[in-house]
């Protein structure tokens, strides 16, 4: 591997969270962005071609080395690492609404889901998946929530716009209901 690819590998190994391209650039300030991306490609290819237990991923606002899924079961069985708990359907619903409608207040989420969500918002915030991003207009200036970088990372997304657009979903909202 090239010296730059090795430096990038070392830096990525030294971090538990994704590192944005710009931050990787700070490792070698004289390197141009094109060369940096080429070195990242080189590293990814090395992992894929020469057969490694890890791979290079691009999600959550940056680059990150992750283990390959085929080893997960053996690692968990040997109790060397544990997968995080699966999110409940209710949590995923709340996350989906926040991801698409952010910034969004609690009342609006409850209107869509039809259930109270305050304790769920708290636990999603504690898990670092959503955060308060501001305050709304209107009565009481409600807290507004949005998704975090960790949300992108945990759902293997580079940007929010990688989620299907509303009009790409199978069920499109019909503008007008026919009246019987």
């Amino acid at each position, binding site marked *: 591997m090239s010296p730059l690819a090795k430096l990038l590998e070392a830096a990525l190994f030294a971090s538990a969270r994704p590192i944005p391209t710009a931050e990787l650039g700070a490792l070698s300030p004289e390197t141009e962005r094109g060369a940096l991306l080429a070195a990242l490609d080189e590293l990814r290819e090395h992992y894929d071609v020469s057969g490694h237990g890890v791979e290079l991923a691009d999600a959550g606002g940056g680059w990150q080395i992750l283990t390959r899924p085929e080893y997960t079961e053996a690692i968990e069985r040997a109790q060397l690492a544990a997968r995080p708990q699966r999110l409940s359907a209710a949590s995923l619903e709340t996350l*989906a609404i926040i991801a698409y409608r952010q910034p969004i207040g609690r009342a609006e989420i409850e209107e869509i889901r039809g259930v109270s969500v305050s304790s769920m918002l708290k636990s999603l915030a504690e898990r670092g998946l959503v955060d308060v991003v501001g305050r709304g207009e209107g009565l009481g200036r409600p807290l507004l929530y949005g998704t975090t970088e960790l949300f992108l990372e945990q759902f293997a997304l580079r940007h929010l716009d990688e989620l299907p657009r509303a009009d790409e979903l199978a069920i499109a909202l019909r503008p007008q209901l026919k009246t019987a």
Partner: protein
Amino acid sequence: MHSAALEDVPGTFVVELTAFSGPLDLLLALIRDEEVDIYDIPVARIAEQFLARVNELELDEAADYLEMAARLLRIKAQMLLPRNSDDETWEDPRAELVRRLLEYQQMREVVDVLERLGEGRRNRFARAYLPDQPVPVASSAPLSLSLSMLMSAVDRVLRVAHRPAIHDVVPRALDVDGAMLTVRALLALRSSARWRDVVAADAEPWQVLSALLAILELARSGELTVFQPGPFAPVEINSVAAGQAA
């Protein structure tokens, strides 16, 4: 998810209501099971089944389900009202419900996407062991701060004994003198106490506040010292007399 479970067990119709993430989820399942057109819901029949299901099992969020049940019954009543067949202004009382159901269904589709993506990521581990990570300290670096971080700091500072359900707190007169007597009595017995000893876990806000003010007052007059051994550690309340004797 639950539809698969239903198909596995033909004939039986026992559904765990906790398998539903809310009243709209349950409603959608009924519409699917009954194979009715979402744009032309037979409200009377669906409302009946909805109520039957809600009554079958106890629910965590019963209030949310009951609210939906009431809404269905209201729509059912509206549907029964006689109307002129060529009334242009008549609006289908189900329209708002259908809009919400479609919106909810659309969101469920996103949930499926998130579930798939999340599962893919869950099967990959990130680096866990980071030996000798340097902790850079530079006051010029940009700050990462959020309102929720500040809020949890407030939470920690106030160390409230319990988290009440959201309701209006009736203002109560503080009883600082009474709390001071309690603290003095406690320290006479134990010479050292913790916040938890002074304030019961289910204390009212006015009691918490009274105790806090009492401790501060006694600390100021030199009867006790307040000491926190480390961040987040429980605050130790020590009698000064006992400290000198020791």
